[in-house]
């Protein structure tokens, strides 16, 4: 046993040293341990338990929560196919089948030789250049049969992922329409210089005047949030940038972090000055692992330029630094209180609120949690003033919004518009034809049908965090909804009864309909589930889980009608299929060995 523990102690010691034996960093420690060893070995848990003074059960419980952490060997290659509806529309399942065929592996099962493990994963945020996959946490885009064939070769020959063709990993920005943010000539340090001019109070005032609302989806007033945090008593204040971007169809933050990270970090730094924070976190979703080195380099450069660290721009006492924490495959960690739990090294279950993070956040201290785009906007506001910003967009929704457009259109990618733009305008600009529907703001958003394309994007009409998925007439809107429902069932944190069980019940119901066992009775059931989840769920995930289905039933009823058995009530399973095993075991195939579909 001792020699086995030594096997893990070497790499764990260096990780623990780097993390200063801080139990709050448990998620990062586990992630790094896995990156080194391939999975989290039981002996490694023992060692960590001893060194961090944490019970084994706690460490195992944390590892068990996150999709990207494994307690069992997962092979030399862990291949995860992004399974958002946009990936499916581009034929990802064919590619998955081909890869599995060629490499003699079943999805979800470790291959016999321990070489690889293949499965699907939730939207990886590459919808504009899909189908996409993650191999050992690194993103590969634009999958084709050719690429898959090459990948099979590489895997067979045990070529390390770092030596694979560079073009596989060339993730593009695809910026299609720039406005004040994407088209800004922002120079690193300019917003901080403006901060120096205006002072903390001055900048806070500008943010308030700007009427900026959070760009992560909830739309809370950024000025109010910063003000509340600033006023809240605490030993330390914290600034957290929510880069968990897990909402299917959303990939705008990916681009901001790739090409506009100075603007984002500068916004965080301004916030730190306003609220009195010395430490900030960028919580980066695990699927964007490929951005880590670049972001660390940007932070390092900013430190060298005195834009981060101690005495920023020469101001004594203005000390602020940013640490990057990676997520590990849990959409729920995009919810701000679950994100904070994750930062504290725990399972990502949302907290009871009130109290809210602005008063009781990270380590129970006052914390601002804002989206990537929100922080970038505050840099612009710091420079150009709040009135300028408020003059753009609409009365209720000031400024611009970045959309991540994907699906059936000629030019998927990033489009920045002032708020108030119509859905029709976006469709025209991205080259969408024969559009049947648009899913705005992802799985938890709204499905817009053709007669609504004149509606406007903004908090007063159709709010959005940015996702804009386009479906043309050839698409089956039932399958779109079903994809989203599977997503919610997979991503439910499991804390509260209504969402934990309800999302599975809903998923089963949609599968029932998909297999031709649906009846009008099921519609009533879905309605009832929705009311329950809306009223009793612990967080927004439960509240939104039924939305995709209700929207599509209301607006695309024919897609459901064709799956109804035209009876009042149909059992969820194939009764004749339920006799299959018995037929096999007895060798019978006579009439009595079968059950016909009934007239119930």
């Amino acid at each position: 046993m001792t020699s086995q523990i030594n096997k893990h102690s070497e790499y764990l010691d260096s990780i623990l040293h780097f993390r200063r034996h801080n139990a709050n960093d448990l998620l990062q420690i586990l992630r790094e341990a896995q990156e080194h060893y391939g999975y989290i070995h039981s002996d490694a848990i023992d060692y960590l338990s001893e060194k961090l003074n944490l019970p084994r059960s706690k460490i195992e419980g944390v590892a068990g929560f996150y999709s990207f952490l494994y307690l069992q060997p997962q092979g030399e290659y862990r291949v995860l196919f992004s399974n958002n509806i946009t990936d499916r529309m581009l034929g990802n399942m064919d590619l998955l089948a081909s890869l599995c065929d060629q490499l003699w592996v079943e999805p979800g099962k470790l291959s016999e030789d321990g070489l690889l493990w293949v499965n699907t994963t939730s939207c990886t945020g590459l919808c504009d250049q899909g189908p996409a996959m993650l191999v050992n946490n690194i993103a590969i885009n634009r999958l084709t049969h050719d690429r898959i064939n090459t990948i099979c070769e590489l895997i067979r020959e045990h070529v390390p992922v770092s030596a694979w063709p560079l073009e596989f990993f060339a993730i593009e920005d695809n910026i299609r329409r720039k406005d004040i943010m994407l088209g800004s000539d922002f120079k690193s340090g300019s917003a901080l210089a403006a901060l120096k001019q205006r002072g903390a109070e001055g900048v806070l005032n500008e943010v308030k005047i700007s009427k900026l609302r959070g760009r992560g989806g909830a739309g809370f007033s950024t000025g109010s949030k910063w003000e509340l945090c600033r006023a809240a008593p605490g030993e330390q204040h914290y600034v957290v940038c929510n880069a968990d971007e897990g909402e299917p169809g959303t990939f705008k933050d990916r681009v901001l972090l790739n090409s506009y990270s100075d603007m984002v970090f500068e916004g965080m730094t301004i916030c730190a000055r306003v609220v009195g924070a010395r430490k900030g976190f960028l919580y980066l979703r695990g699927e964007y692992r490929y951005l880590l080195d670049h972001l660390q380099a940007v932070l390092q450069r900013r430190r060298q330029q005195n834009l981060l660290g101690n005495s920023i721009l020469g101001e004594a006492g203005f000390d602020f630094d940013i640490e990057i924490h990676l997520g590990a495959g849990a959409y729920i960690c995009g919810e701000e209180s679950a994100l904070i739990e994750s930062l504290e090294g725990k399972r990502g279950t949302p907290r009871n609120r009130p109290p809210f993070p602005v008063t009781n956040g990270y380590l129970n201290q006052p914390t601002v949690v804002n989206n990537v785009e929100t922080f970038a906007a505050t840099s612009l506001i710091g420079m150009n003033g709040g009135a300028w910003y408020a003059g753009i967009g609409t009365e209720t929704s000031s400024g611009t919004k970045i959309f991540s457009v994907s699906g059936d259109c000629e030019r998927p990618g990033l489009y920045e518009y002032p708020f108030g733009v119509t859905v029709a305008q976006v469709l025209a600009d991205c080259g969408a034809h024969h559009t049947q529907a648009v899913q705005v703001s992802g799985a938890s958003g709204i499905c817009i049908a053709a007669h609504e394309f004149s509606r406007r994007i903004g908090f007063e009409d159709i709010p959005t965090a940015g996702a804009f998925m386009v479906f043309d007439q050839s698409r089956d809107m039932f399958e779109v909804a079903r994809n989203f429902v599977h997503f919610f069932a997979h991503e439910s944190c499991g804390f509260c009864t209504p969402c934990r069980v309800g999302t599975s019940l809903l998923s089963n119901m949609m599968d029932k309909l998909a297999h031709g066992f649906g009846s009008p009775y099921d519609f009533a059931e879905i309605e009832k589930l929705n009311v329950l989840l809306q009223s009793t769920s612990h967080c927004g995930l439960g509240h939104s889980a039924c939305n995709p289905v209700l929207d599509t039933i209301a607006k695309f009823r024919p897609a459901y009608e064709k799956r109804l058995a035209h009876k009042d009530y149909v059992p969820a399973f194939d009764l004749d299929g339920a006799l299959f095993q018995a037929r096999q075991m007895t060798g019978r195939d006579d009439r009595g060995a079968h059950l016909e579909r009934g007239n119930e």
Partner: protein
Amino acid sequence: MIEAHIWSVAMNKDNTFTLDGKLIPYHEGQTIIQAAIAAGEYIPHLCFSPEFKPHGSCKLCTVKANGRQTASCTQQPQPGMVVESNTKELNDERRVLLQMLFVEGNHFCPSCEKSGNCQLQATAYQLEMMSPHFDQFFPDRPVDATHPEYLLDFNRCILCSLCVRASRDVDGKNIFALSGRGIKSHLIVNSKSGNLADTDFSAADKAAHVCPVGVILKKRVGFAIPIGQRTFDEQPIGATPHPTVKGA
């Protein structure tokens, strides 16, 4: 009894709320359900226990506070707050939550040693749950009989985390924890083998006595309390604000 409570606290609008029309006093730091229980009122609950910090996972205790639905175990009252609990709408919701719990696990009452002393079962009786309504999941869940004195039957676990809280906060042992996510969430124990026998769990632990359902069971007591004399044979769970369970 309620009158005695009322007169013992200075009654003004600053520290009372109404629960189904009844005036309930509260003090700073109490949640709705805590104040209700102190005043002798019953709100259905499973993961809440007066001895532990509120958890908020089962959602049975959902009430309507000033028109908004919220978990009464985590919601702090406000002066003059109007709280509704015993309404058809809320009881219908609670019944569905119970049905969800019943289909999620394998709750086979006829052979369960906790039957009659089980809070899940008793709450379902209280809310007249006549059938599970949904299709049963029939999950494949383990039974851990490794410990010499205690049995763990995970078929019945409702993830209330009372054992987790008791073991961590009272026993200081951290025997129990939750792992997995979503519908795959499950209880684990603090040992490498995953077996209870390899932990320092003991019959004297608080955690051995807090399970509201039939997961953590003392071995070799079987059906010691005859039918008719079990906790919830004698009175329904709604007869008291929070039950004192026999044989716990």
